């Protein structure tokens, strides 16, 4: 909790150091890294969407390395069973013929879980993970097992190759704090990637933060101030995603089927606070909200068929909402 300017500066420095360390390994992708850190510091889960080979797994692993968190990776496939994620109860036979049940934790028992290509698993398996994300526990064999803290799920999904996939339902998408788009690297970034990965020694991030420090940063972020006006703007941002709302932009009224819910508002404020902390401020500003708006809202707006047919994206709708608010501010 921030109680002095020195405390604030220390928090800012920690976050900056974390970024720098990640940047030692990950070339470019500053926005993705930053948004992932927001998610981490806000205590939420993130969904990364991007084509294969853009370094998503490496990014998550690097983050795990820098924060000294245990890392698990689950490759989602159609035949993946829920127990493959959560773990299963085994019967241990003793040397003297005795037998006892033993819970074998699955890969979800980690601080940082990478759910790779989550949309390739069946909904049943997906929901097993999502339950763990929401509750922070896993129930197996009548016993509830608490997941380690901090617990983050960073799921990825491939926007192409949609055959044989199971798109996440809206209710489950809503559980992800952010949906982060991973873009293709630029020319310069590509060159640097090649240079780094084909050298004798691949760069490796070192741990610059403990799990406890991460938890402290989360508490620091939560203690930041939010003015009533800023809160009103956040509410307005969310409300304007609803097509039935009078103030909603025409595009939203036409192309949005459903809007965002209360979790979006929570996410906006949480991310806003984290961003404010990373910028050394003790209060949330409109700039924090407008920056967080796209990753927070893009997976919470459901498009109409017309919008999908016309290629209208949720990003476009979210951007129009932000512009509308700024114009009237």
């Amino acid at each position, binding site marked *: 909790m*921030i109680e*002095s300017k020195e405390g604030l500066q220390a928090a800012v420095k920690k976050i900056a150091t974390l970024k720098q360390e990640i940047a030692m390994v990950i070339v470019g992708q500053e926005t993705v890294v930053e948004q992932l850190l927001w998610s981490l510091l806000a205590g939420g889960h993130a969904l990364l969407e991007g084509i294969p080979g853009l370094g998503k797994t490496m990014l998550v692993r690097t983050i795990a390395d820098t924060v000294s968190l245990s890392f698990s990776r689950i490759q989602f496939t159609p035949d993946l069973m829920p127990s493959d994620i959560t773990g299963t109860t085994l019967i241990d036979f003793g040397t003297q013929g005795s037998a006892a049940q033993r819970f074998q934790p699955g890969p979800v028992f980690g601080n940082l879980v990478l759910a790779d290509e989550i949309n390739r698993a069946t909904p049943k398996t997906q929901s097993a993970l999502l339950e763990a994300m929401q509750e922070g526990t896993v129930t197996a064999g009548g016993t509830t097992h608490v997941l380690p803290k901090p617990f983050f799920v960073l799921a990825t999904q491939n926007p192409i190759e949609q055959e044989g996939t199971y798109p996440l339902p809206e209710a489950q998408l809503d559980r992800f704090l952010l949906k982060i788009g991973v873009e293709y690297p630029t020319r310069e970034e590509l060159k640097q990637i090649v240079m780094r990965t084909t050298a004798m020694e691949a760069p490796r991030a070192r741990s610059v933060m403990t799990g406890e420090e991460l938890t402290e940063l989360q508490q620091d972020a939560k203690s930041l*101030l939010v*003015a009533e006006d*800023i809160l009103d703007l956040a509410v307005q941002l969310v409300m304007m995603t609803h097509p039935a709302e009078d103030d909603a932009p025409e595009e939203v009224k036409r192309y949005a089927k459903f809007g965002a819910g209360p979790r979006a508002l929570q996410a906006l404020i949480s991310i806003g606070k984290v961003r404010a902390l990373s910028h050394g*401020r*003790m*209060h949330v*500003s409109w700039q924090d909200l407008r920056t967080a708006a796209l990753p927070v809202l893009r997976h919470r707006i459901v498009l109409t068929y017309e919008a999908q047919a016309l290629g209208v994206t949720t990003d476009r709708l979210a951007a129009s909402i932000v512009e509308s608010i700024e114009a009237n501010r």
Partner: protein
Amino acid sequence: MANDPLIEQLKPVRRRLTLFRLSRMTLLGLLAGSLAGVFVLGVARLWLLLYASLFFFFFVMAGLITGLLFGLWNRATAKEAAIEMDKSVTEDAIVTALEGLEAYGANKQEPAIVKLQREDATEAANRYVSELNKRLPWPSWRSARVMLFGLCAVWTGIAIMLILPNPLQERAVAQAEMKMSVDELELEAKLIEEELERLSLPQDVKEALTKPLDKLREELVSGGLKPVEVLEKLDQAMREIERVANAAKEALQRLNTAAEAMNRQPLLRPLGAALQDRDSAAMEQAVDHIRSSLSRLTPAERKELAETLEGLASQMQEQGDGADKLAAAFGEAARQVRDNSEADQNSGEDALSQLRNQLASELSQGELEQLARSMSEQLDRSGQAIAEGMRSQGLGGSIPPSWRGNSQDGSRTPGGGTSGEQPTSGSNGTSNPGSNGGQGSGSRPDSGQGAESGAGQGNGGGIGSAGSQESGGGVGSGSGQGNESGTGSGNGQGSGNGAGLGAGSRTLVTTPRTMAGSGDVYQDGGPSSGGQIEQGGQSPIMDGVTRPYEEVYSEYAAEARQSLGRSSLPASMQDKVKQYFDEIQPNR
């Protein structure tokens, strides 16, 4: 909280924002008021709209003041100043700090982060204020160019409308004048009514005068009358009032006749003199003197007195119905004097008292006539003003015939009239009619014998001039009205140069109702210092009062000058009025 450094830093921003708002609102108000003003000026060119300029001025000022007040009313608050500052570099720090300040105030228990954040915000505000001109500069003209261009366009339109004469303006002014005339008429009517109350006249006589006036006022007050109808009502009222005036005049003439007869009887002479002087107190004294002298009279004297009174009674009876009461009073007095000279002395006194009362009543007819004439003249002036207003509005064709008269068409000019007082002295005086009729006025001697005969022929219309000279003797003055003009000559006793100055060839205007008046000339009037009064001839019977053109002209010219003095009268209108009065001046 009020002394918090953050609040202090907000004050200059608040002031500047308030100034911006005030400027914007004032400009908007001016623009709105100007638009309304343009609308009013435009409407004034389509419909008759009185005081369009005043309305225009009112709307512009109202818009300006409303904008100013609205700007003052909506002064920038601390929160608005904070929001404005946050738009720049402070990133919502000021708003957040202000909210924390409002939430915790001077409470020492405020969370540390709130205090820290406020300190940061205060520093940011300080930086902002130190660069206030850069951070919050005066709006460039580009930001207000739509409003400024709009204002320029509107005021260009206003300038054009004000420069180009409004064809309806003259009519609007004329309408206003007409309304003013009606208002003045009502005011004058009230004054005359009050004056009438003061006179000790019989109620029926008063009612004869006030009834048409009341009726007219009721009709005017009820409103809804068109100017033409107002003129008709005015005409009706004038006719009735002039009838009363003529009746009063006849009564006065009867009284003069009686007075002249009384002058031939020694005991009645003081009474006759009092009647001629219109002196009520002297009249009462004279009656008392007669009453007290009765007991001392010889039978022969009593008989002579009675015969004189009987003669007066007979003379009054010959005058017609209006003199019945006076004739009866004279007869009763004569009978009591003759039959009961001593035994019924009291009755004789009663008869004398009745005679005195009757004579007093007849005397008040003089004031009644004056009042009625005054009222008639006022009505006439009002009517002329309304008629003039109608002409200005292009409604001349709707004016009733009786109000169309002017110096040009002569429709309201007399064909004849009373010649006024003519010399009562001088012998064999003659007067010749003027070439164009008109008014003759002359001085007359107050003594001497002689008669003047003359005939006036009036044929109305036109402006003419003629000089008249009359030689006569004596001192006196008199004025006559009528259509006689010409030179008169007379000789007689006395000397002097007050011979009648007859200015003939004048068109008489306004009051006569007909053009066909002709008739004998009155020889009337009396000396102001005891000369004998004679009356001869018969004045043409005119339905109305004859007034000299010069008098009418001078009154109207004076009113016109007053109108010209008003700043609200347009210059074009002023020129027209001047030109009009130049053209109709008597000596032209």
